[in-house]
């Protein structure tokens, strides 16, 4: 970090102490509780992702507290709503780190927001959990990325659907970093499995008329369409695709459809037959998950949102961190990191979730499922998938002192491809 310079030490004694003795100052002062902060969008365009994540985070903390808390202390959870606005992300991140003296912050949905706040947490030596599925590539000693990355899901999905439907693949993706990187992985796995990429097309996030592309797909006659479309406007693609009668002739597979609960925003007929891959689905048939879903619905009522990977992982992320604290016996940053890297694991709704110490990502189960009647039927379960993409570039065991986002400018810039 560029910011860790000598002048900083001179500015004020309080901040200097934070730098010099991470984890003691401030945290010791408020010793009766453990401070956790959550910064997730609960209003604005990203609230379809953020609201369920906040719900499950609150639920996890309430459960931990009801069970006696951590290290005999209660967790004091503060939730901030940055309203889908990056200036409020940095505002709240600074507040969490410098004023609330948070022991851990669970925050961020988009990569842009994560990168903006990660710098702040680095500087104040604050432990940071990012529980969103994303493009991979973050390599930072005090950051844990628990969501799935494209190599984990795309690697399983592509061969499965190619075997089922055929080898000619047409890719449609959102025109931003995540969409591009996901499309790159899809292209790679299509090639690796002996398939053919017919075309790849990118769409701005606010486009909601897909007519010409649907005609192009009709002209190209692929065996299947792989979608990495993201967000509310892109829901239109699936609906217009079905309206043109395409859903019955060329099937769609995706690792992004459903993460904003898109499968409830389109009708059953429009979505039937689509195949997706996630590391969590509400329909997972285990006692732990059924219990979890039951408790969630009891807490948030009959019209509680569908629990997607983001929501479930926010819950599991809180528990995973709690396991680390328990094992460390303190909330000291270095101790918790060391404990998390042993590695700790947590058996949650999605199955076993384990920290991968080289990358600070998670080893997790991946599920393939088919959509029928706005519900998923799980087709395959792949146990304990490694974050293979981030592992290609990141080794925190060898080089612990780094804080880098390797895929900031795509895979090619990171030397992959």
């Amino acid at each position, binding site marked *: 970090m560029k910011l860790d310079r000598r002048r900083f030490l001179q500015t004020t004694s309080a901040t200097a102490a934070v730098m010099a003795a991470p984890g003691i100052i401030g945290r010791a002062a408020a010793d009766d509780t453990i401070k956790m902060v959550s910064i997730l969008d609960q*209003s*604005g*365009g990203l*609230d*379809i992702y953020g*609201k*369920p994540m906040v719900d499950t985070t609150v639920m996890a903390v309430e459960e931990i507290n009801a069970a006696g808390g951590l290290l005999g202390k209660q967790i004091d959870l503060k939730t901030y709503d940055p309203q889908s606005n990056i200036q409020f992300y940095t505002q709240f991140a600074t507040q969490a780190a410098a004023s609330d003296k948070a022991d851990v912050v669970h925050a961020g949905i988009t990569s842009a927001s994560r990168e903006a706040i990660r710098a702040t947490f680095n500087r104040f030596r604050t432990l940071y959990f990012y529980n969103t599925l994303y493009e991979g590539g973050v390599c930072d000693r005090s950051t844990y990325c628990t969501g799935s990355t494209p190599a984990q899901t795309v690697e399983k999905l592509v061969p499965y659907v190619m075997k089922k439907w055929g080898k000619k693949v047409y890719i449609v993706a959102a*025109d931003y970093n995540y969409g591009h990187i996901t499309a790159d992985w899809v292209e790679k796995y299509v090639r690796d499995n002996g398939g053919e990429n017919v075309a790849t*097309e*990118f*769409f*701005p996030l*606010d*486009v*909601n*008329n897909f*007519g*010409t*592309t649907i*005609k*192009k797909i*009709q*002209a190209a006659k692929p065996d299947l369409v792989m979608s990495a479309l993201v967000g*509310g*406007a*892109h*829901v*239109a693609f699936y*609906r*217009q695709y*079905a*309206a*043109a*009668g*395409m859903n019955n002739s060329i099937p769609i597979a995706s690792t992004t459809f459903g993460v*904003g*609960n*898109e499968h*409830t*925003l*389109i*009708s*059953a*007929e*429009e979505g039937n037959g689509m195949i997706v891959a996630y590391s969590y689905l509400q329909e997972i048939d285990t006692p732990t998950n059924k219990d979890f879903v039951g408790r969630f619905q009891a807490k948030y009522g009959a*019209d509680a*949102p569908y629990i997607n990977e983001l929501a479930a992982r926010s819950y599991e992320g809180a528990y995973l961190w709690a396991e680390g604290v328990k094992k460390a016996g303190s909330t000291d940053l270095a101790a918790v990191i060391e404990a998390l890297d042993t590695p700790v694991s947590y058996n949650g709704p999605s199955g076993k979730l384990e920290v991968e110490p080289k990358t600070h990502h998670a080893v997790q189960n991946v599920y393939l499922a088919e959509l029928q009647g*706005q519900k998923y039927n799980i087709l395959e379960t792949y146990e304990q998938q490694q974050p293979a993409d981030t592992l290609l570039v990141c080794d925190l065991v060898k080089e612990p002192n780094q804080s880098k986002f390797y895929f900031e400018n795509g895979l090619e810039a990171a030397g992959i491809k």
Partner: protein
Amino acid sequence: MDLAIALALQIIYGIANLVLISLGLAIIFGMMRVINLAHGEFIMLGGYVVVISTNHGVNLWFAMLILAPVVVGLIGVIVERLLIRHLYGRMVDTLLATWGLSLVLIGLITTIFGAQTATTISAPLGAVPIGEYSTSGYELFLIAVAIVLSVVVYLALKFTRIGLVARGTMQAADMASALGVSTSKVYAITFGVGAAVSGFAGALLAPLTGVLPTIGATYIAKAFITVISGGTAILAGTTSASVLLGGINGIVSFGIGPTMGEVALLVAAVILLRLMPRGITGRIFRKSL
């Protein structure tokens, strides 16, 4: 050949889409000089009326063609009476007021229905084959609706008494008022009709798009640009700007890609306004409606 026909239809649909999402804004702006920043939210409300009512067993066609415009139109009248009425002659303050209104509507819908509402509807009318291609029958229906809607607005303005009064008020509010027209009533009706048309558009698009509280943001900029590029004539302006901008968008989207299609639309609007500083109907079709 089949491809050419299918594509042509697609581009015409893109134009019709632009007409639908812009016309409500054009009515309110053209008649009242109010830039309604809550326009996108009126479209969103139309979609919500359809999704919520069909979830409660209401027939889709009834919800789209009747319920949505009526409900959103009434909301428009209420908004005009409570808020906009106090701000006539203060165009800039209406920017702030309608911005606030847009936030309120998003917040209200999110509070009542959550960040998303599950839907059960899909586009009716099935797919229509065009040789080896197929296109959505419902999109063809929307093209027809856009044409009919434009014709109805034209006839209403041109041949009905209300239309005459409205045009008179639009051209010279003082004079109309002096001649005994209740301009306040005319404005209330105009705002209501504008809102109803926006709600109608949102309802019609509901089976083809995602309906979310925040979805209005995807419409407002495009509608705003289309209406202003069209100039002061409500109908001729909006339709001619839609044809131009929608056509360019469709062709470039197909030829280069969707991102460039969006950019081309915007660039075309900038160049157009430079060449015609009062919009298309500021220069040509001046006498039109």
